[in-house]
């Protein structure tokens, strides 16, 4: 007798006796097995920027409901330092330049920002052997969802292990939602960035996953997972605003959720699209590279920054609390005000500050 038939028989018998079905009786999904070669190449891709210096041009494109959003970047990467990144061919930001330091990740190796451990846990990794792009010999690795639809393709340089190209696909496995492509790449023997542009403002300090329970008891929202297989893998604190940063990823898409105590200032959402939730609260979104969503609920202001496709972004935002601010009618306000004034006029009310 097969395991599934046995499970069905056991569960039917238990339902007949009026007992809840034990978790062990749930039919397990077919076990996914990652190709060791694919994992090996992705590990090489994660480690490559730590030991390879290069100069190249990269295009990042994100497709959404309102069309495509793209960026062309000139990247000078020094293995020992980090990357100097300049925007190319954008009239809106001539000369825009930033230095991004290579982060020391506590969650292990990452491929294009996604933790490799989460990529392995969420998707089935398949080795597709040999191809070439921008004149360089490369290997192709694919990530498949549980339903065997294509989630991502990785082109990894055979000579250096650098990730040359990455394409991400929507739930149908056919619609491309995001792509990162090098259009040219020169491997440098020794690259050193002498004149660093300013680093980005802000800065973060590690809080760590072991503080999550403590933060939750203090009233912060710390969901261990979000829709679309996003898992919480790291917590930081922004040193400038003292806000908390919760990092979520499925290995492909990355989201940072920032939480601050307070109420959202309406003037902060100029240029954002306002959406009213089912509960009557307001959420302000801006889809692009990256996408932003802002809202406040129960005295916490949430700011979500990430690269999720539009549909998944909406689902993720909807998973959070959205308590609308309490509405006070004009009559209630006048009543409260009159009560305050009456309190001033009574002798005890006037002396209340002295009496404690």
């Amino acid at each position, binding site marked *: 007798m097969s395991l599934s038939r046995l499970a069905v028989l056991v569960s039917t018998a238990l339902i007949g006796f009026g007992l809840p079905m034990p978790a062990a009786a749930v039919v397990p999904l077919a076990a996914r097995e990652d190709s060791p070669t694919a994992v090996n190449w992705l590990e090489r891709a994660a480690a490559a920027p730590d030991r390879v210096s290069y100069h190249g*041009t990269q295009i*990042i494109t994100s497709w959404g409901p309102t069309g495509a959003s*793209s*960026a*062309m*970047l000139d990247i000078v990467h020094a293995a020992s330092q980090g*990357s100097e*990144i300049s*925007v*190319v*061919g954008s*009239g809106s*930001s*001539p*000369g*825009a330049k*930033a230095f*991004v*330091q290579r*982060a*020391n990740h506590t969650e292990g190796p990452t491929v294009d920002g*996604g933790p490799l451990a989460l990529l392995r846990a969420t998707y089935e990794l398949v080795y597709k052997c040999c191809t070439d792009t921008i004149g360089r010999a490369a290997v192709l690795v694919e990530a498949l969802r549980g339903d065997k639809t294509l989630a991502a393709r990785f082109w990894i340089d055979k000579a250096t292990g650098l990730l040359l190209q990455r394409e991400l696909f929507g739930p149908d496995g056919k619609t*491309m939602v995001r*792509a*990162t492509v090098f*259009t040219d790449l020169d491997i440098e023997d020794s690259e050193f960035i002498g004149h*660093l*542009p*300013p*680093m*980005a403002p*802000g800065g*973060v300090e590690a809080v760590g996953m072991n503080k999550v329970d403590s933060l939750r008891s203090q009233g912060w929202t710390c969901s261990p997972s979000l829709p679309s297989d996003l898992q919480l893998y790291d917590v930081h604190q*922004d040193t400038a*605003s003292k806000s908390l*940063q919760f990092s979520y*990823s499925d290995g492909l898409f*990355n989201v*940072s959720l*920032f939480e601050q105590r*307070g*109420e*959202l200032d309406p*003037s*902060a959402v100029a*240029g954002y699209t306002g959406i009213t939730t089912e509960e009557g609260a307001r959420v302000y979104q*801006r889809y692009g*590279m*990256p996408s*932003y969503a802002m809202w406040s609920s129960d*005295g916490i*202001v949430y*700011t979500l920054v990430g690269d999720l496709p539009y549909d998944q972004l909406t689902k993720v935002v909807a998973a959070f609390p959205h308590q609308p601010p309490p509405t*006070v009618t004009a009559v*209630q*306000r006048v*009543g*409260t*005000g009159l009560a*305050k004034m009456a309190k001033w006029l009574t002798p005890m009310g006037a002396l209340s500050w002295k009496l404690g």
Partner: protein
Amino acid sequence: MTLQHPLDKLSAVVDGELDHDSRDKVLSHLVSCETCRGEVDAQRRLKARLAAADPIEPPSDLMQRLMGVPSFSTEPREEVRPVLTPVVSLFPQRSAFPAARTGATRPASRVSRTRRRTGVLGAAGSAAAVASLLGTAFVLGDPARTEQPPVLQPPVASFSADHAAATNGTPFTDPVAMLNSFNGAGYAGLSPTLQPVALTGR
């Protein structure tokens, strides 16, 4: 992801001369077209070589020859605009002096109106007092005057930078993100005193 190669726009995208929508269309095409990517790469390399070349000096007598052109003058032209005064005004200004008004009627009898005016003024005064009382109560009853969490504006530029750092430094180019807010002197909306910093471990 169009099928047609936008060959006429490839040099413009390298030079940053396309508007936002056109640039996005061309870059989206480049993502999926190796032929055009090669063309853009060749144009970028050519541009880099031209930029590295020595600047061309103009001939020493160029300025003299330009001064010899009759219509050339270094004096800025003064533009003369006729000042038009409208003959008929659409909104004639009313005089502040009632005597100057034409066709103004004088008040008839003051005695008969005094009591009525007193009553009206009294009623108006009472209504104003009640209105001011209710207005004060309305202001005092504002829920914002009680213990409320602070109203704040999330520092989006700083958050974008934190997100980029956490995701291993893929910078973003959204107009409100940190990369584009850097204008060569500082970050928009932030202290312009940001200076290059020494590397510190995270």
